[in-house]
């Protein structure tokens, strides 16, 4: 009799757990729901930290997204789509609420949407006639799904379809008090083995997690993943398993309970950039990019050479993810699951490889970290439509409400997207911001604010210790690399935009000012 290795055992166990979860989802959905009317299904695919500036779909010189380009041939493609934040919390919250970060107040690491605004979310507004399904591998985005729990018909655990969970106890283990259970267990008591600065609150749970991590033969590096398995620093996974799992769920469960709204938020291509071996080395190293000196507000000081390396690894990872996504879409098409379905592809924020900075969530909010993809493929759409006007990820919520035949509430700060009832408004202003170190309950005074209007982009850095407040102005049409600061040269535009931004900040802060 052959001996079963510990790894085989773990894999088998994980497969059984995934199967059980999948079976449970199928059972719940197929028994509880039946087709209601001809309202379309909506599938939202969010790729974490996917910058539009790195997608060949938007003209990037490296051929990173052939499959997205294929989908774009029958989709509406938004060329100037911006996230309202430069990291998961603020970007995702804005997408799901249609509100700016200074309104929903999810502005900090692990932040929550203001408790009084929790009902203002897509799942609640689209209503119970839709079967609402949500899955995210990003634990910070999962905080919101926990907040929206009552508005979800099915909320799949973050580590579904993952073979190598690190934590002994998951937030789903506590149902009755799920919001804060996340904090207590995941953010405090448990040990996050890969966390850079762990300080677990429970010696027992932390030691158990640690011993488990040491005892397992978890392949941090495998033959298929020479740079290590993709991981969100809480659990590792293989994209093939995750995308296959999502595809199976869509095919056999969600679309049978039409109409459905399914939200999939994948961790990839977020760092660490762990592409499969087939995608490593596919791009030459000679990509030319203009020199940008280190920015005084940059949190790190990576050399250009190092940034080029990270950039190449990121591009390889995007290409890997694009291939997996292409397979997923192909399978869904073959199965007929997309017949009455809107497919939406977007991201929560981008990624930055310049001015000494790598990643996101820094004080810098240049276009690569805010400019995100948006594709909407409508049922039966056979041609491509391109939209070049300014749009924001706040616009997704009202647009989806319109698609599903729902009223758009007055409080929504986004607008209908062009092509779905919205107009291409050249005078529109959008206000992305980053205020991760500013208390959510106080006026926003320690932040980077952005105003994007027409082809101009104004940055306002304020409240950073050791730095005086500063403005920067760029004209993106002629200077897409944001190299020439016009703040002291184009005085008229600078003055107008500065006044508009300061007025908007003042209005947003009004309710939080001390009486």
């Amino acid at each position, binding site marked *: 009799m052959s001996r079963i290795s510990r790894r085989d055992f773990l894999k088998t166990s994980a497969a059984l757990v995934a199967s059980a979860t999948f079976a449970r989802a199928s059972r719940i959905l197929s028994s509880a729901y039946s087709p209601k009317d001809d309202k379309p299904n909506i599938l939202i695919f969010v790729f974490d930290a996917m910058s539009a500036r790195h997608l060949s779909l938007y003209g990037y010189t490296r051929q990173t997204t052939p499959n997205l380009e294929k989908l774009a041939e029958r989709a509406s493609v938004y060329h100037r789509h911006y996230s309202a934040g430069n990291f998961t919390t603020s970007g995702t919250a804005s997408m799901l609420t249609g509100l700016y970060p200074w309104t929903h107040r999810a502005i900090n690491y692990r932040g929550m949407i203001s408790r009084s605004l929790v009902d203002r979310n897509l799942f609640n507004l689209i209503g119970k006639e839709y079967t609402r399904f949500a899955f995210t591998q990003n634990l910070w985005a999962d905080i919101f799904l926990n907040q929206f729990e009552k508005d979800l018909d099915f909320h799949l655990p973050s580590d579904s379809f993952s073979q190598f969970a690190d934590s002994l106890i998951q937030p789903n283990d506590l149902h009755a008090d799920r919001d804060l259970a996340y904090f207590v267990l995941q953010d405090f*008591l448990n040990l996050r*083995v890969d966390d850079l600065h762990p300080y677990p609150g*429970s010696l027992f749970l932390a030691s158990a997690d640690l011993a488990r*991590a*040491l005892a397992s033969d978890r392949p941090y590096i495998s033959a298929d993943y020479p740079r290590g398995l993709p991981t969100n620093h809480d659990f590792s996974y293989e994209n093939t398993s995750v995308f296959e799992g999502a595809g199976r769920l869509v095919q056999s469960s969600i679309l049978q309970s039409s109409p459905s709204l399914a939200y999939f938020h994948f961790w990839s291509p977020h760092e660490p950039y762990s592409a499969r071996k087939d995608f490593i080395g596919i791009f030459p190293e000679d990509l030319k990019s203009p020199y940008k000196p280190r920015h005084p507000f940059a949190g790190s000081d990576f050399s250009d050479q190092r940034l080029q390396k990270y950039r190449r690894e990121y591009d390889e990872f995007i290409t890997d993810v694009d291939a997996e996504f292409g397979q997923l879409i192909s399978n869904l098409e073959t199965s007929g699951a997309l017949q009455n379905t809107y497919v939406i592809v977007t991201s929560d924020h981008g990624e930055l490889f310049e001015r000494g900075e790598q990643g996101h969530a820094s004080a810098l909010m240049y276009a690569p970290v805010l400019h995100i993809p948006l594709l909407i493929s409508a049922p039966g759409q056979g041609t491509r439509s391109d939209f070049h006007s300014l749009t924001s990820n706040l616009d997704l919520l009202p647009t989806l409400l319109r698609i599903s035949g729902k009223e758009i509430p007055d409080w929504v700060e986004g607008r209908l997207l062009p092509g779905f009832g919205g107009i291409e408004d050249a005078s529109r202003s959008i206000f992305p911001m980053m205020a991760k170190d500013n208390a959510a*309950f106080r006026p926003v005074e320690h932040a980077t604010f952005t105003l994007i209007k027409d082809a101009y982009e104004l940055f306002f850095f304020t409240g950073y210790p050791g730095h005086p407040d500063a403005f920067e102005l760029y004209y993106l049409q002629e200077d897409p690399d944001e190299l020439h600061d016009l703040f002291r040269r184009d005085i008229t535009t600078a003055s107008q935009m500065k006044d508009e931004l300061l007025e908007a900040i003042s209005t947003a802060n009004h309710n939080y000012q001390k009486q």
Partner: protein
Amino acid sequence: MLKRLPSSQAILQVYAVIAVMFSGWTITAFLWKLSAWLLILNLGEIFTVFSYSMVANLVEGLTVLLLLLTVCVMLPASIFRDDFAVRGTILALGLIGSLMTFVRFHMQFGIESGVRLLIGPLLVLLLAAILLVFPSNLRIVRFLHSAVLWAADRMVVFLYVLVPLYVVLFAYVVVRNMT
């Protein structure tokens, strides 16, 4: 069965050491995280986080105490029960101290250090074992035993704060999960 258990005073002394060690760790970690939580959680939510943490603490402490009492019941009285306050305290210090060292080493050196993370905890356990095994007629061992007993005795005062706190927070957590 009850005769095999140590005196309630000795149990109290050992439990005081256990509770102070666990709660000390958790409260330190809590204070370390507090500045970040103040940005995102309101005071009620922070209180809830603290409540869950302390209830987890209570469970951990009682588990270790139960473990020691089980050992006490199983071993001959002369080995463990008769000197439970000292030997139980040393064992608790060894067990909890090794967990602290284990997690601390990870915090310092990361998971990449692999099994080397076990060096610290094993040293702590070895030290505890030495204190337990060496004959108590040795002067230095006698001194250490009396020091341990003195410390355990002083720790009891913290139970006047910790036990009511555990009771209140436990009730709070139960109510939260019932509603």
